[in-house]
């Protein structure tokens, strides 16, 4: 016992053996100790790979990442000049930004030491070289298997080739709610799509609304810049999807199908009630729109919202233009067109069909009756290849045939057909004819040939693939030589191999190899190599209009050299649905400036903010009107009404144009929360004083932001006044 006790007293002395041992100490900093392979050290960013989508800034929980425009980085489709700058006075090295990076450009090195007395050195703009420009191996980096982003699309269900082969039923089935929400959930709301979209639609907003299952809001967002969402949801050329940041590493979001899904869920009868568009009481000024195509209808829609009397002239029996007469039904069912158009007409747009301006009604007559004329006549003349034989009766123009299909006109469909052209119109006519062949003969014998090789064919890939499935034979890279006519009957098309389509200056200058000749059998030839404008409608003003090259010269609001004449749509920008919508929207604004005799001051990016301010002020007045008459609130209602007036005055003439700029959209999306949450927190009825106090603070922040954003002196003054008001109000209620 005693020995044991003494032993236990001496036991601690075993520790003395460590005197002889090598110490456990690591000799830092003399010897650099590398961090682990996954270490989350300082950031590096591949400046070239980075597209400046700002998703890292979105996910950063510390507001440590700011997007700054870097010199020499250009904005473009799917990229911005912005790059993330990281504030190490905020960063917590959680690496969420790395995991969420859409391009994998952002990663972390294994460097971990930065010491400085100067806080400015803790705010860095990471590039490939790292914070101290020293070589350090990569640490934490994005992992493709464990990724926050959903890189795969939700597959869209479509009719199979057998099902669709002989009918004009719409091919695309559309998303179910679950599919749509899943697809919508993939979006990171970077806004690159908005920048790329010709109409600058509020895409992140309406996708977000779909995710929140708030389709009304989704529709409302779409109608802000596009009155034809049903149509666009089906046949838009979706520049947005090309720009999509998710598309860098994976498949872009199916923005078009999401739009279609949202609009399909909103019945036509509800459009006017759901979309609480405030139609201004009609004034006396009138506008004529010539052509009821996308551009014309868009112009009509926004003009009628602004209070103009709008009359639309259309030569065809029904409105819709190319949407109706140039699109096969299997891509764009007539119900969708009717839904959009009927809504626009229901707002008070007068439609006069069957009147061809320039033929039935000269343009000068129109000019007399209306203050402004908007020409939106589109591309209705098909171009010809002008090879020998094109004057044969069995040689057709694609656009003419498509219109005849729509109208239900009868025309001969031969057993063997050759289509010349590689664009989407060629696909449309080819696939339409294939359906007719299948119906009539039970089989498809149709050849499509075009100058471009398969990889540079302008038609959408999916169109070509689907066409192949339907039995169409593609012969790309061939130039038509002549149409072989035997005994007055077409037997085929002789082609030669096209060596190249464009010359070194990227100009259209095809070269052919005349030795490589092939003949495609066919009794009927369709030309689908493009369409052109018909300028006869401008008579008698054709001569007095200034031209820019082969197009009419217009300014940024599509006003021609004749101030009363605006020209929009395909004639100006070439054939594209969504571009047409945008030109119509812009022209409506130009008309408003012209007729309202307002200066065309620069459209500042404050527009969006003013929209919020308007909502805020309206709400403020509404709440105060409901509030009980409390002594603390005395006189406030009058002041708020004045403030509402100020904002309305600032907004007049602006609120139809919503042009989101990249930086603004990000600023907005981050700051929005504060305002909107402040609004949401307000209880109705009781607690009015608290409500006012809460709002006062929200108002202060709102106008602070706007004050910063504005560049106009006039606005600045107004913002300052409003901001001061809310500051003092907040101070009065001691929330500040």
């Amino acid at each position, binding site marked *: 016992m005693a020995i044991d006790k003494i032993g236990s007293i001496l036991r601690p002395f075993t520790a003395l053996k460590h005197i002889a041992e090598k110490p456990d100490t690591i000799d*830092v900093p003399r010897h650099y100790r590398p961090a682990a392979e996954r270490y989350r050290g300082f950031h590096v960013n591949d400046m070239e790979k980075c597209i400046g989508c700002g998703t890292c800034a979105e996910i950063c929980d510390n507001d440590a990442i700011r997007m700054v425009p870097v010199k020499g980085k250009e904005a473009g489709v799917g990229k911005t000049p912005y790059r993330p700058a990281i504030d190490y006075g905020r960063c917590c090295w959680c690496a969420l930004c790395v995991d969420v990076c859409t391009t994998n450009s952002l990663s972390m090195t294994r460097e971990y030491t930065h010491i400085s*007395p100067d806080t400015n050195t803790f705010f860095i703009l990471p590039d490939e070289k790292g914070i101290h420009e020293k070589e350090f191996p990569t640490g934490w980096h994005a992992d493709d298997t464990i990724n926050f982003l959903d890189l795969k699309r939700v597959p869209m269900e479509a009719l199979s080739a057998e099902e669709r082969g002989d009918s004009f039923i719409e091919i695309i089935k559309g998303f179910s709610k679950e599919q749509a929400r899943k697809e919508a959930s993939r979006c990171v709301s970077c806004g690159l799509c908005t920048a790329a979209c010709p109409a600058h639609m509020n895409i992140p907003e309406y996708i977000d609304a779909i995710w929140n299952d708030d389709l009304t809001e989704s529709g409302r967002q779409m109608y802000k810049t596009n009155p034809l969402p049903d149509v666009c949801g089906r046949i838009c050329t979706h520049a947005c999807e090309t720009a999509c940041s998710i598309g860098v590493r994976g498949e872009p979001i199916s923005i078009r199908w999401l739009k279609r899904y949202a609009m399909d869920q909103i019945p036509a009868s509800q459009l006017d009630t759901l979309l609480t568009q405030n139609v201004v009481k009609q004034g006396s000024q009138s506008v004529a729109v010539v052509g009821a195509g996308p551009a014309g209808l868009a112009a009509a829609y926004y003009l009628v919202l602004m209070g103009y009397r709008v009359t639309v002239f259309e030569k065809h029996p029904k409105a819709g233009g190319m949407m109706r007469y140039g699109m096969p039904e299997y891509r764009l069912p007539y119900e969708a067109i009717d839904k959009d158009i009927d809504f626009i007409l229901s707002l008070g747009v007068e439609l006069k069909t069957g009147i061809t301006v320039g033929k039935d009604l000269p343009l000068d007559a129109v000019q007399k009756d209306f203050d402004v004329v908007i020409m939106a006549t589109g591309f209705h003349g098909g171009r010809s290849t002008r090879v020998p034989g094109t004057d044969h009766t069995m040689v057709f123009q694609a656009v003419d045939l498509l219109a005849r299909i729509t109208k239900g006109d009868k025309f001969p469909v031969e057993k063997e057909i050759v289509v010349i052209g590689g664009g989407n119109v060629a696909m449309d006519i080819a696939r339409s004819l294939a359906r007719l062949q299948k119906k009539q003969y039970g089989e498809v014998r149709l050849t499509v040939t075009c100058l471009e090789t398969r990889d540079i064919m302008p038609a959408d890939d999916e169109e070509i693939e689907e066409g192949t499935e339907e039995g169409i034979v593609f012969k790309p890279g061939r130039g038509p030589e002549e149409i072989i006519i035997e005994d007055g009957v077409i037997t085929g098309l002789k082609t030669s191999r096209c060596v190249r389509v464009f010359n070194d200056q990227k100009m259209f200058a095809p070269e052919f190899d005349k030795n490589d000749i092939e003949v495609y059998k066919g009794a009927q030839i369709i030309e689908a190599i493009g369409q052109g404008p018909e300028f006869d409608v401008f008579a008698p003003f054709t001569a007095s209009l200034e031209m820019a090259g082969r197009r009419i010269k217009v300014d940024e609001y599509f006003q021609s050299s004749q101030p009363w004449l605006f020209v929009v749509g395909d004639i100006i920008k070439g054939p594209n649905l969504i571009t047409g919508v945008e030109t119509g929207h812009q022209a409506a604004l130009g008309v408003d400036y012209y007729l309202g005799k307002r200066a065309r001051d620069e459209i500042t990016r404050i527009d969006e903010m003013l929209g919020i301010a308007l909502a805020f002020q309206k709400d403020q007045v509404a709440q105060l009107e409901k509030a009980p008459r409390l002594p603390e609130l005395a006189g406030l209602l009058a002041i708020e009404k004045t403030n509402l007036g100020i904002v309305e005055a600032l907004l007049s003439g602006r609120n139809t144009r919503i042009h989101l700029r990249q930086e603004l959209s990000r600023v907005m999306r981050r700051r929005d929360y504060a305002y909107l949450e402040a609004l949401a927190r307000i209880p109705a009825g009781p607690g009015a004083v608290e409500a006012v106090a809460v709002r006062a603070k929200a108002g202060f922040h709102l106008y602070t932001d706007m004050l910063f954003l504005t560049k106009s002196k006039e606005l600045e003054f107004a913002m300052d006044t409003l901001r001061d008001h809310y500051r003092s109000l907040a101070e009065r209620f001691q929330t500040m």
Partner: protein
Amino acid sequence: MAEKELTQRTAWDKVLANLRKRSLWMLHYCTGCGAVELPPTMTSRFDMERFGIMPMVTPRQADILLITGYLSVKTLKRVILIYEQMVAPKYVVGFGSCTINGGMYWNSYTTIKALDRYLPVEMYLAGCMPRPEAIISGFNSLIDKIGKGEANSWKDYYENYEFYKKNQDHVFGDIETHHDVPADGRYFGILEAKR
């Protein structure tokens, strides 16, 4: 001012500075979560006593005040009391993101966001929290600075006391610190030099 002082250093100052830099005691006060990396730094694995740095218990004994991360307003009050009790020359080291611009508590209602508004900071270490290696590198650069006679941020507290006091009052209301800071400044010959 700092440059002038640097050129006026005598040989004795230089010798003294080079001896002084070999012994730095930091206050053993865990103001924030960054303090969890201090025990490894103090103990065998990284052993900062190699550089003559030791944890010390009371403000009077300490040379370095480590602000290990965020400072709640409640702690800031104690930290200011402590700082004023420390015997000059004294050095504040900002430790991690939170001391620079609020760090991950940037939207917290109880933590201050920028330490240099309340105390003069000698240097900052990046990290959330900095690794022991980084801490040791940081101490080494502080040692270098002291050796070169450049670590004079503490004088700033006396020279610009109005600035610091104003900011301190902004978060506390009026704070009573038991210390007549201007008098200390005169004692150190900092304020006379200014007058």
